[in-house]
């Protein structure tokens, strides 16, 4: 099993430029069903056996694509997302980096109105993300497929290469992945940690979860509270940017400590309060997760017991004796994790916001 992408995923690529076509080929080689590409100028031709169409609507109608991946450069990215929302696909993955915040505010405003009538669909992942992969089944993104391995760990992250780093460590430790989701480094994105946590909780193929956050915003804090209440599977967290200075944007548009909030310390505290073990450095993640998966959930949800904090300065794998948690071995499934209910305000029906 997997989350959001799998054997039935049929991908259309929006933006068959240099990057788009390169990754279309990469996804196809990984085994993903890449059924169409969009290129207004090369419609009717094909690329590496992938038929090209002028419009997304036509491509979806002809090829039954259900997932779109977007490589359109930033100035046109929002328009591409709108086209994808209107095309009726269920999943939209926006890889593009550098999309203006106002464009994304407009997209979100429109998307949530569509989602309110389409039962939460389509789902938007990104922008400014590496995409997602269900190892061995389907890759919808730009990550190096070969470092992944099928398995039971669900991973969700705001970053790209740092995720690869951790996936690599997990794979080396023999811990395969069910699905790895990059939600992106922008301040306004389509899918947040809670969405991914709910999906992993509901996915029978996922037994443990790695959550990789970073400075900026409060998504991690909300995720921590959500885990405490709704997630029975073991979760291990990591926060990048523990040494980042305030007020500086650390590469990602969303990675900024503003007004003294959004610090790594704040987020780490939130996870520890929720009983989620926090790795101090990436190489601790596999060990902590293995331990948590062995012992069931790291801490009982009723008593906010602090995470098993390892005091020793030893960095590498915490080869401490397996910790016996007070909690029962395998917490029985509480309830089917429901899709988080969006704060859907009264659906405005006027047309989508046009800039100036």
């Amino acid at each position, binding site marked *: 099993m997997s989350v959001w992408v799998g054997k039935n995923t049929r991908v259309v690529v929006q933006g068959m430029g240099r990057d788009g076509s390169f990754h279309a080929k990469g996804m196809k080689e990984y085994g993903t069903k890449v059924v169409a590409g969009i290129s207004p100028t090369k419609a009717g031709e094909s690329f590496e056996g992938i038929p090209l169409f002028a419009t997304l609507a036509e491509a979806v109608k002809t090829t039954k694509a259900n997932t779109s991946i977007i490589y359109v450069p930033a100035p046109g990215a929002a328009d591409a997302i709108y086209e994808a929302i209107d095309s009726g696909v269920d999943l939209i993955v926006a890889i593009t980096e550098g*999309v203006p915040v106002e464009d994304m505010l407009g997209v979100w*405003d429109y998307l949530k109105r569509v989602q309110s009538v389409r039962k939460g669909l389509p789902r938007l992942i990104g922008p400014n993300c590496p995409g997602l992969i269900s190892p061995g089944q389907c890759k919808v993104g730009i990550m190096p497929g070969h470092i992944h391995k099928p398995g039971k760990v669900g991973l969700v992250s705001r*970053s790209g290469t*740092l995720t690869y780093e951790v996936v690599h460590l997990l794979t080396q430790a023999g811990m395969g992945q069910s699905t790895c989701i990059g939600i992106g480094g922008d301040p306004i994105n389509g899918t947040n940690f809670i969405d991914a946590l709910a999906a992993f909780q509901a996915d029978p193929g996922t037994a443990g979860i790695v959550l990789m956050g970073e400075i900026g915003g409060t998504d991690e804090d909300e995720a921590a509270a959500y885990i405490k209440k709704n997630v029975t599977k073991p979760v291990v967290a990591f926060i990048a*940017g523990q040494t980042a200075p305030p007020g500086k*944007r650390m590469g990602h548009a969303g990675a900024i400590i503003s007004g003294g909030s959004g610090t790594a310390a704040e987020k780490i505290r939130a996870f520890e309060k929720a009983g989620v073990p926090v790795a101090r450095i*990436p190489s601790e993640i596999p060990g902590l997760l293995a331990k948590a998966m062995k012992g069931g959930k790291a801490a009982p949800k009723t008593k906010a017991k602090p995470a098993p904090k390892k005091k020793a300065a030893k960095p590498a794998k915490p080869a401490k004796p397996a910790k016996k948690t007070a909690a029962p071995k395998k917490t029985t499934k509480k309830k089917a994790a429901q899709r988080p209910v969006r704060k859907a305000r009264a659906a405005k029906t006027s047309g989508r916001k046009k800039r100036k």
Partner: protein
Amino acid sequence: MNLHEYQAKELFQRAGIPVAQGIVATTPAEARAAAQRIGGAVVVKAQVHSGGRGKAGGVKLANTPEEAEEKARAILTLSIQGLPVRKVLVTSAVDIASETYAAILVDRAVKQPILMLSAAGGIDIEETAHTNPGAILRIPIDLTTGLLPWQARSAAQKIGKKGKEALAMADMLVRLYQVFWSEDASLAEINPLVITKDGEALALDAKVSIDDNALFRHDDLEAMRDTADETAGSILARQKGLSYVPLDGDIGCVVNGAGLAMATMDLVQFYGGKPANFLDIGGSSNPEKVVAALKIITGDSTVKAILFNIFGGITRCDDVARGILTALDQLTIDVPLVIRLTGTNEDLARKILAEKGLTATTSMDEGVKAAIAAAQGGAQ
């Protein structure tokens, strides 16, 4: 990108937000002339990209042009939070009856712009947000309608404004939202928004930050960029599309990807070192970016060792290795270089590096430890 107060006030004026008359001066003599033209008492205000200007002595009242010249002379020698003052804004002084805080910004949690309003004007809003969040009114703004006049009126009334004052303030708030939206701002702030003793509403100060990602459609704003405080390294980084944040340590870091770059900084600190910078060369590698990165880092004289941390995905390790060799040809690098490479084409990269006698580790932890040792003079 942050605008200076005088630049933000230009945007305000264009949008019809009342501001006190002001003239920019770069010398004491210019400040004197400006005060003469404005007439009456003036305020001389440092134009630097930092908060706390008043506390640092960067804002002074002057009753005569002579006094304005004198105050400007003093202010133009100041450095505020490390930034030298190069310009002052001379603006007519007003008699303040009340002060309000007003700002439009993006609320990430609700994914909407919001109006923030507080009767405690002139305050440190960040501090108030922490200590007394109840004192701040937060009104979410619908994108389809924008900030509606009735919402603005009601907000003004809620913080205690009445009659004409409330109307004048509401009008400014609606216009402030127009500035925010049309200029792709991430923040448009008036602190304080004052009501004068004559009952006039004015933006006494102005702060506007523009979304960097939207500058491509605002050439006029890009032209307002003040590069005077930027180092050569920061300017080169921007031109080459690298994310670069200088820090105060001694280990120069070159990393692909922002998350990995942050984690690298953290790891350096974790093992007892101090990073000299955050530097993300981006997802797709071309050797030229590597050369630019090394140019930036070698321009920082405090750097005692350079650490490359590359996880090859889309970035090909061999491209990075070629970039390193090119940089070694072009630049004099007299500090130790520690390289960590793994992922796409790493074997090829190793071969390329070996031509110059360079080696690379595969583990991030090992790379970081080696860089720290090298910076301390241990491992070369």
